[in-house]
């Protein structure tokens, strides 16, 4: 493992302005503003607060935490699709690729056409994709279905195609949000091997997963998020152990879920 940083977060904070992002109709927005013109700060919700970490090239890191603890928001901030509202996050890679279940495909287009479209989103030229097409289709195990529209695919098939595209387009930072949990065991194992290959080539992998078993087998370190803040960041097996016992304890106490 090298010591070149791939992702550096310093005091990273991401704020959701609930007024703008939750109220979708103009009427409610105006009514709210009329009744309470200075409620601006109270409608803010910090999904991430003061997050600091360094992730190195060649490392695979898992993010654990309960629903609503900010795991997906963190991946989106690393991918650069949402803004940091305080602090900064820097990625020292050519590009970060984020994979989420059921997003990023054009349902009416075939799997093959979606490979080209995804490539265009990743700033690849069509002739670069021509070269990658065969390995992607082969790895995805979609066979003849590659020419069927993606809307007819199962969730597992979509995840396979998405992972296959991401894993073959030379991502220097690969971010996976629960995508591998929907595939079957055989594909999961194959994907895990592929992730190991990527980290072996000094690429960084960050996964959000609820499968603690997968995390311990795949990741070197784990980052535990709780209400948008980093609770623990250390060796995967240790953090996972602590997290698992804390989750068991809170289940026993029947603690209510964190908001959002």
């Amino acid at each position, binding site marked *: 493992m090298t010591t070149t940083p791939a992702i550096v977060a310093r005091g990273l904070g991401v704020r959701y302005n609930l007024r703008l*992002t939750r109220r979708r109709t103009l009427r409610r927005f105006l009514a709210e503003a009329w009744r309470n013109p200075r409620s601006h700060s109270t409608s803010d919700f910090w999904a991430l607060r003061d997050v600091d970490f360094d992730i190195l090239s060649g490392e695979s890191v898992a993010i654990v935490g309960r629903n609503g603890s900010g795991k997906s928001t963190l991946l989106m901030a690393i991918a650069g699709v949402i803004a940091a509202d305080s602090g900064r996050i820097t990625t020292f890679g050519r590009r970060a690729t984020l994979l989420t279940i059921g997003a990023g495909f054009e349902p009416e287009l075939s799997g093959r056409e979606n490979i080209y479209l995804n490539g265009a989103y990743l700033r690849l030229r069509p002739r670069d994709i021509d070269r990658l097409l065969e390995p992607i289709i082969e790895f995805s195990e979609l066979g003849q279905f590659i020419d069927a529209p993606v809307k007819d695919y199962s969730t597992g098939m979509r995840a396979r195609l998405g992972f296959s595209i991401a894993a073959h387009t030379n991502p220097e930072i690969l971010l996976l949000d629960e995508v591998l949990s929907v595939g079957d065991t055989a594909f999961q194992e194959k994907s895990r091997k592929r992730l190991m290959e990527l980290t072996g080539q000094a690429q960084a992998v960050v996964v959000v997963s609820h499968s603690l078993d997968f995390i311990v087998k795949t990741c070197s370190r784990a980052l535990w998020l709780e209400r948008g803040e980093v609770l623990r960041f250390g060796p995967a097996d240790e953090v996972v152990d602590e997290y698992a016992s804390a989750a068991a304890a809170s289940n026993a106490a029947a603690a209510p879920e964190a908001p959002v």
Partner: protein
Amino acid sequence: MSTAVIGDDAFAQDVGLRRRVRRELDDLIAFRHLIRHLVSTSLRAELSSTTLGFLWWILDPLLLMGVYYVFIGLILRRGGPHYPMFVLTAIISWEFFAKSVSRSISLTLAKEGSMRQVAFPRSAIPLAATITEAIHFVFAMGVLLILLPAFGLTPGPLAVLAIPLALLELVFTLGVSYLLASANVFFRDVKHLTEHFFWLWFHVSPSIFPAVLFPQQFLTIFQMNPFATFFEDLRSVVMHDRLPATSLLHLGVLSAVSLLVLAVGFVTFVQGSRSFAKVA
């Protein structure tokens, strides 16, 4: 250590608006394949989803022309022999504008999934939507030029002036598209309001009546409407081989206003797009 190109500080708070806009423009060039892809995807979806395919690109304006011809030409017996071409010219010009805006609005919403995954320049979406409609416009203008002789009108060399007029309209259209597409992400009412307002806007422009029929006391307001210029001037150069009646000063002001609308629209969109992925 390699320096990051995408996904690094592009969204950090300390990056000024000026730098963000410049970066967005650089990214639009870097992502030109994506823009081309979005355009061709839209066009192919239209061609494959309807039986008549690209014929709709001209059937749409022609059928609307037919409606107005029945009302104005046949029932009210106004408009004269050139009326179908008179109204068709305005319809083609208008549909370029109105459909660009509505396509930009809906495409920006439809790309939500991609926007939550990839850090591509969001301004590529309304740009691709407007280019798609510009292609429809060019196609429809071609058919219009073929139809004109059938109504006793011969397009002459001045028809070339339709190109700068269309470019001017493109600038204005793109600006409005950016403005409303970003507003609609946060307030979904914008799409509905736009539809009704545009319907009114079309009819208070010299679209189905010539400018001379409008009340003279509103002349100044009337002339401030960009579509008064777009429609009347397009008719002059395409149908009658005449120079536009609009003064050069007026065209200069309209160009400046259109560029301003584009600048304001683009900056608003770039600023708003920072929060697009947060809107649930």
